[in-house]
Structure formats: structure tokens, C-alpha cells
């Protein structure tokens, strides 16, 4: 008997891809589609840094060849943005005005760089490094750049600063303690980072922040709160990530910081699931919510969401905690793995 189910996954990261594979593995009849607004096929996000430094070539970023989707009969729609979800009619509205019907839906939309509100008015001067198109934009700017400023405090920012310093760039780091998501850096941790950075000749500002940023020709002028002026060639912003949930607002799917799901990764609307960096998951043991971050967690959650969509009732647990050594800082984490 033919099946008319159409399972749609929004997002082409580890969460979306592992969900698609599991759906196909357990249901060889249904239509399975991944819709993603990025134009580049599934890639290792963490390798972007090495890609712009020239250590990795474009091909090395790709997780799997396009033929894999063909073999598994998974329909990939790249460069297509979902603008609105209408759960009542099970319709997705795409940016190019197409409407697509689904029977069940998995949200795996990941997260985007956060800019603290006090800096949002300077956002147009910032470069980001969270997706392939960012890397393409940054790559040609970075090689001639001599002086680089980083406004940051998340894990990637620490790694990135080290990489730039190895590339012989003059790095100034503004450390935002509350961006070390999901917890805040204590004064001790901040000074450990500062110490580690000074060994690498990275100048760190821990309590003084930019009060004005202006473009001056190709360069940027930063004035700090204590009146210091510095000129840099490029400014990177790494202040943690925020779930991509804006387009979900108003659809009836509940969100807070991320898409709210129970321990089975179910949203409040039937037949709609969420997983990976976009999800805010209820933990019945802690009686609290947590936002997943990290590549490995995303994959595990994609799998769980897919199985539950197919009728199982698997409970998601954060992966095992491990000690991570980041730039002189020992972090006990269940959400990040050095990749």
C-alpha cells in the first residue's frame, strides 16, 4: 500500500541529517525532505576556522557526498528558507512563496550568533563565523588583516583567538563573561583566560567594553568605555548562539529561549518535534529546561526525535560529562566535545 506521509526536517546540520537517516531507515515508503536555507551541503561546522586559515580545503568540510541522499531517497532542498509554519493546515511557507505540506515535522534549525543588546547598534561592523557563507565572506578579508578584535567569550571565540594568534595577527580580545553559555565565567575563570592569552600576546579587556565603533575606510575604530582608542582591520563577534526560532513565533508552537519540547523532544503541537541547538528540552529529573549545544548532542537528538516521530517513546538524556581543556580552562561539560 502506498504511503503518503511526508516527513519534513527543517535544518541541514547534524540534528537534521541524523533524523533524516533514521526516518528513512525505519520507513522506506514515506517522503523524507530536508529544507535548509544554507546553499552549501551538509558540512562540519567546526572546521570553518581551519577553512579560513587555509588548513582545510572546501571538499574536506563536506560530511557526505550528494549521492548519499539519492541512494537513501532523501530529498534535499538547499537555499530555501522556511518563513512560517501553519500547524493547523500542516503547511510550510517558504521565502520564495512556495507552500509545502507535511504530515510530520522536525525542527532542527540550529542557532545563530548572538549580539549583546548593548552592541546591536554596531552589528553592521561585525564579522561572524557560524556558517559557510560567513567563512566565504571572511576568508579574503582575513589574510591581509593585521589587527583583529574579538568581542567574545564563548568556546569558539577562545579557540579562534588562539588560531589568529598562531597566524601572527595582533589580537585584542574583549571578554564578555556572560557569553560563556550556558553559564557565566567566574572572575577566576576569566583571569585564567586572561593569563593564558597574555602568554600568547593576546591583549585582553575583561571589564572594559567598546562604547563606540565606527568604520574608517576599510578599518574600524573602537573607542572603549575608558576612552582608549584602537584601530583594527576586522572585528569578530562570538557571544554565544541563540536558537533560530524567530520564524516559529506566532505559529502556536511554544518557545522560550528555544523551541520548548518535553523529554521525548515533542513540541506542544502534535506531529511536530524539535532537536539540536534549536531545542529547549525539559528534564523531568532536574525539573528544569536545558538548551542543547554541540555537534554530538545534536546528532543523538536527531535520532531520538525521528524514532519518536515514528511512534517510539525514547527519552533524551544529556550525553556523558567530560572534562574539556579550553585555553587553560578546565570545563566540565556534557554539551561540547573538542572536534
Amino acid at each position, binding site marked *: 500500500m502506498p504511503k503518503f506521509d511526508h516527513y519534513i526536517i527543517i535544518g541541514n546540520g547534524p540534528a537534521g541529517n541524523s533524523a533524516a537517516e533514521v526516518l528513512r531507515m525505519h520507513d522506506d515508503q514515506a517522503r523524507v525532505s530536508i529544507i535548509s536555507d544554507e546553499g552549501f551541503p551538509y558540512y562540519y561546522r567546526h572546521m570553518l576556522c581551519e577553512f579560513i586559515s587555509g588548513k582545510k580545503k572546501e571538499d574536506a568540510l563536506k560530511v557526505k557526498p550528494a549521492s548519499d541522499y539519492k541512494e537513501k531517497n532523501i530529498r534535499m532542498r538547499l537555499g530555501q528558507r522556511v518563513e512560517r509554519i501553519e500547524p493547523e493546515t500542516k503547511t510550510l511557507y517558504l521565502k520564495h512563496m512556495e507552500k509545502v505540506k507535511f504530515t510530520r515535522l522536525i525542527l532542527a534549525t540550529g542557532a545563530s550568533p548572538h549580539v549583546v*543588546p548593548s552592541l546591536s547598534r554596531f552589528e553592521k561592523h561585525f564579522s561572524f563565523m557560524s556558517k559557510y557563507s560567513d567563512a566565504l565572506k571572511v576568508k579574503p578579508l582575513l589574510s591581509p588583516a593585521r589587527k583583529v578584535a574579538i568581542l567574545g567569550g564563548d568556546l569558539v571565540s577562545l579557540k579562534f583567538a588562539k588560531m589568529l594568534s598562531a597566524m601572527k595577527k595582533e589580537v585584542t580580545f574583549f571578554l564578555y563573561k556572560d557569553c560563556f553559555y550556558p553559564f557565566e565565567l567566574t572572575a577566576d575563570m576569566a583571569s585564567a583566560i586572561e593569563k593564558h592569552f597574555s602568554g600568547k600576546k593576546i591583549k585582553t579587556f575583561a571589564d572594559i567594553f567598546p562604547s563606540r565603533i565606527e568604520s574608517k575606510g576599510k578599518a574600524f575604530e573602537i573607542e572603549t568605555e575608558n576612552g582608549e582608542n584602537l584601530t583594527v582591520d576586522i572585528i569578530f563577534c562570538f557571544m554565544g548562539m541563540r536558537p533560530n526560532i524567530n520564524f516559529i513565533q506566532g505559529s502556536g508552537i*511554544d518557545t522560550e529561549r528555544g523551541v520548548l519540547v518535553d523529554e521525548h523532544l515533542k513540541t506542544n503541537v502534535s506531529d511536530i518535534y524539535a532537536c539540536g541547538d534549536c531545542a529547549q528540552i525539559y528534564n523531568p529529573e532536574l*525539573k528544569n529546561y536545558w538548551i542543547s549545544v554541540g555537534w554530538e548532542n545534536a546528532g543523538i537528538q536527531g535520532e531520538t526525535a525521528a524514532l519518536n516521530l515514528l511512534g517510539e517513546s525514547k527519552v533524551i538524556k544529556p550525553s556523558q560529562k567530560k572534562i574539556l581543556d579550553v585555553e587553560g580552562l578546565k570545563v566540565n561539560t556534557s554539551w561540547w566535545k573538542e572536534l
Partner: protein
Amino acid sequence: MKEKKMTVSKGGKLSAGKKREGNVFFSEDPRDFGYAKENIPCQDACPAHTNIPGYIRSIYEKHYGRAYEMNRMVNILPGVLGRICSRPCELSCRHGESDLGTSVNICHLKRSCADLKPSWHMIKEEFYAPSGKTVGIIGAGPAGLAAAHELAILGHNVTLYEAMDKPGGMLMYGIPAFRLPRDILNLEINNILRMGIDLKTGVNVGRDITLTELIDVHDAVLSTVGCQEPFNLDLPGEDLDGVYSGLDFVIRVNQGERIPVGKKVAVIGGGYTAIDCARLAIRLGAEEVSVNLRKTETFMRIDEHEKHEAKTEKIKINGLVAPFQINGTDGKVTSITFERTRLEFTKDGKGRNAVSIPDSAFAAPVDTVILAVGQTPDTGFTGGKIELNGKRIKTKAGSYETGIKRFYAAGDCVTGATNVITAIAEGRHAAHEIDAVFVGKKRITETIRTETASQTDRSRNDDFIKASVMPTLEVTKRLYALTGEVEQGYDDKIAGEESKRCYLCNLRYFIDTSQCIYCSACIDVAPRDCIKITRAVEIKKDGAYGELLSATDWSEGLAIVIDNKRCIRCGKCYEVCPMHCIHIEKVELIEQKLEA
């Protein structure tokens, strides 16, 4: 569904029965009101029906005074509302439709015309002859002030009775000066009082004079007493030192008191009062301030700019927590215990309730707790003689009159806590009703004005201009003083750029089907699905025209029609039509004053 075959008509006149004055038509046909409602979405969403495209166009032309007066016709406090309005219009703005970018900053533009008009600017008032009637208004908040102004220009004698020392209601005592500088507020209030209104401050009706006495001396009495009574959560520990009601807190700080708040402050609630308390607490020296919500940010009833500024000042917004009890030692608050909540559908399936999760309690250390969970009217002044709707004053259906003859009520005391622009609109409408009773006819009515128009100089590029950000005071400079205005206003350059973004939805592009040769050149250049080959048009229950029913095949298409709800007034079709059969009209919802 009823539908009507497209008929071939000459000209694009909306309906029969219009009054003609030169090139201008006036209509009271419900279908024309229906057209304006759907096609000028910002004006429809504004409770006062402000002519938004009209004033934005005047700003573009740098006629700031004219733009200000256009606002003032229906909203006597443009400089105030340009700062603190809750902006329902922006939620409905066509430019904010998902494929079109973001809404026009309508409110910032309103402020810009107030800021940029010259100080010698001419205020326009149209007075009616004195009637000899007198009206007493209880409460000089926005509803009372709006009603007073309207009644005064209609020729009646108005006395405002206000319990506090100064007029303005929540504008003076609720909204902090860093959002609404008092010189702006006083200037606009004085422009109202100049109409010969007698303001009696420090008069508490119910205590200093009774309602019955007022009804005896006035031909009509209007209550606009607002919501002055904070809601109570009855939490254990509410009586500890360091626990405040939000309304008390803002009123005391606005009167100049520097309340000591300590380092950590938890505000409970998610409305305007809660956010203002949090922002005041930061200015009073607190280091960590959180706003705590039972539900989530999505359900907060304040506008996005407010939230953004609060976050800029490092105020944390915590969702999905409910206060459980307040703890203290030696009579002083030390911490607050919350329970986590989860969202559950309401019975009708539309809203959400927050339900506490059992055994999820956790405590957060704090020095101050501010409970700002809403307020209700205090109707004690009526001596219990009045019928209530919950705690609100009940009025007759479709009217502002209460159960007591000649006693009317409007604003937050009737609707419950809303916002300033709703209170102003309600105050005016109540005044119009009182006037109609005095005179025996409605002298101020809404009408649709239609005028032949020509192509504007807006360019298609203007549709892609990014929304102009409001310049604000640096965070470090904000926190020293309680009063330094955070938003700095647009200068004329920014205002000009922002004004270009408005599509001018009051323009109506239509095709004279009798001339059209179905070449579809217009469809080819259209930026979205705004021009349709149509077989029929839906007729709504009230007779208004509804959706255009597209033909699926050329053979059933009876006309090429512009769908004005989709049209972004780009003018491209007008430019290419070889038959010049696309015409433009300006359609406006305006108020008309009856002349003898």
C-alpha cells in the same frame, strides 16, 4: 460563499452613493469603510485611527508641523505617544509582512514630527459655539485629558477633578522620565488646558467631594479614574521589608524618592510597570535585576523596543517561573522562592496557562522584590452605588453611560489596564457621545475621503531601505540619573529616510477594465502577486467585497484586477500600462465635523 461576477466598469469608483466635491468624494458606505480597514492596516490598528500614511508623507515633505497637527486631530499628545505608545499599528504595518521586511517605525516618526516642528508652529483648533453645558471629569490621565479637550472644542465647560498634585495620570506618575521627559508632557498638557478647561488638582472625588454632588452641579460627569489598585498575589512574606508593589514603587520614585534597592532585585510580572520598575532599579544602583514571568517573553504585553532597551541595560528576563514565597530574616527580605512552570493550552485551545511543576522550587537570593502583576480600578469613589464588571466600571452596551443617568465612564477604569492610545481614543469617543446627547445629533463622525491622485516620487529602491535604528544614550551614561532620556530621537535626515519606507497604503491603484487590453504587461512587472486574472469577487455577509477569486485558466478570467491588500504601491504597473488605464486615488479615513 456568495460571489459576484466581475463586471466591466468605467473608472474604479468604490461604490455608489458618494458625495462629490470637485475631485473629492465623501462616502459613508460600509464597503468603503471595509476597504480602508483592510487596505490601510496601520490606521485600522491604531485605536485612535491616526492618519498614518498622511502624516508620514508630510514628514517626507518636511512639513513637520502639518504632520504633528494630523496626529493631533485624533491624538492630543503626539510628542508623548511618539515616545511611549504601545504601537499596535506597527504590528499590522504592510511593510512587516513576512516577504517585505520589517514594519515602518511609525512611532519614531511620530516623535520626529513633534521634535522637528519649529517652536513657533501653529496649533489648529476648530471651535464650536459655547453651549452653556458643563461636564465634570474625574481623573486627568490621558482618557480624561482627551475627553476634556474634545468637550472644550465642542463648546462645553469642562472641569477636571484630579486627586494628585499634577495632571497626567500614569503619564506623570507611572511612566518614568527617562522614557517620557516631563517638559514634553507638560507642554502638551498645557496645550489642552489652554482651551479654557478648569483643572482642580488635589481633589479626591469620594473623599473631598462626592460623586452625587458632582452629578448635581454638572450636566454630565465622566469617570476616567484609570486603574490605581495593584493586584495582590498574597504570597507568604509579602509584608517583609524590601518588598514593594510595582505601582507604589514607580509612583514614589517618580515623585523624587530614591528608594534603596540593594544589589539584587527580582521583579515579578511582565507588563509596562514591571519593566519600568526593573529599569528604575538599575538606575537606583542595583547590580543584578531580573524580570520574572510565569509564561514566556512571547506573552509579554509591551513593545519590542522596551524589551530591547531593558536587555541593553543588562536586565535579565526569566521565563517559566512563578513566585512561591518570599523569605527573610529579621523582617527583611533575603531571597525569593520560585517554582518552575510549564505551558498548557487554555480551554479554548488558543491561549496558554502557566502551570507550576510540583517539587521544582528553587530559591534566588535578593535584596528587593517588586510585585508588578497588574492593577485594577479603585471604584470606592462611587460609594458602591455603581454596577461593576468584575472590578471595572460597567457601561451600557455600545455606550459610555453607566447605570446612573448622566454619569459616564471611559479609559482603563472601564477596559481594565490597557495603554495610553486606547485610553485617549476611549476618552474622545465618550466625549462625542456626551456631546451628541447635549446637541441631539452626532457632530463628529468618520468618513471616507477619496481624491484623484497621481504617481508619487517614491522609487522602488525605497522599498529596500533598512529600518532606521533609534539613536540611544550610551548605557554607561544612562545609569547615573533617573531622568536622562534614553531614546534620542531621529534628526531630519534619519526621519526623511525612514519616511521613504512607507508604501503610502492610502493610495489605491486600480485598473479601468473598460480600457484594459489584457496584455498583462502590468503582471510582468509586478513585484508580488498583486495583480490577478480574476473570475469573480467574494461578497461578504455585510455586503463588503472580500477576496478576489483568481481564474485558473485564461478562458475563465473576466478581468485583470489589482489586489490592493497585496499591492505595495510601487507604481510599476502604472508606468508600463500601454493603455494608461491604471489610475490612482487617495483613499483616507478621516473625521468630519458637522457644520451648520
